[in-house]
């Protein structure tokens, strides 16, 4: 991802904000939250709505998707530099969002795999199994996991 990211801010090291300046100015939030699995943190990503609440369902279509995703990747890099043992899990809030995340992982896999170990929770024989992420596969993903290589 060669695009420059948007500048981002954080006050606590786990919640990050940046402004997407495409067709409109939209404040985005990326949040890392502990899960029930002590080794995994959940990545939440969405928009700050005009009313001040948060939504990971809105499709803002602001014309700067690549720059927004580049910024999210930079935030992940920042977070994993602070917490290198953290394994980050993320899943889409809709099938379309899952396809988008899969497309990004697929398109930038060669670049990402230098920095991260990438796995996914995959539907397999009626079960969910964490397996290595395989770009271009027809695997049915339920979630993705990335961990900074040591």
């Amino acid at each position, binding site marked *: 991802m060669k695009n420059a990211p948007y500048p981002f801010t954080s006050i606590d090291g786990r919640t990050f904000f940046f402004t997407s300046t495409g067709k409109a100015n939209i404040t985005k939030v990326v949040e890392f939250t502990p899960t*029930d699995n002590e080794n995994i943190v*959940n990545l939440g990503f969405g928009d700050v709505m005009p009313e001040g609440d948060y939504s990971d369902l809105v499709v803002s279509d602001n014309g700067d998707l690549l720059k927004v995703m580049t910024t999210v990747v930079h935030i992940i890099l920042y977070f994993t530099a602070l917490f290198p043992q953290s394994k980050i899990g993320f899943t889409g809030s809709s099938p379309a969002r899952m396809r988008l995340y899969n497309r990004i992982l697929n398109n930038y896999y060669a670049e990402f795999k230098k920095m991260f170990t990438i796995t996914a929770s995959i539907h397999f024989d009626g*079960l969910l*199994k964490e397996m290595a992420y395989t770009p271009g596969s027809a695997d049915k993903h339920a979630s993705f996991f990335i961990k900074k290589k040591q």
Partner: protein
Amino acid sequence: MPITKKNTKGKSKKEQVVIPVSPSNRSNQVNTLFPEKLARMNELLKNTEMLP
């Protein structure tokens, strides 16, 4: 939530109070902007056979 009082006789006169946090209670104590997404991830993790 259970409270376990650890006997530290011989090491310190102060009584230590250990409040264990069950993994299943962790998300209840976490403030998040995206509670539905966190709940979904926890459900996926519960049902996923993770790599060692």
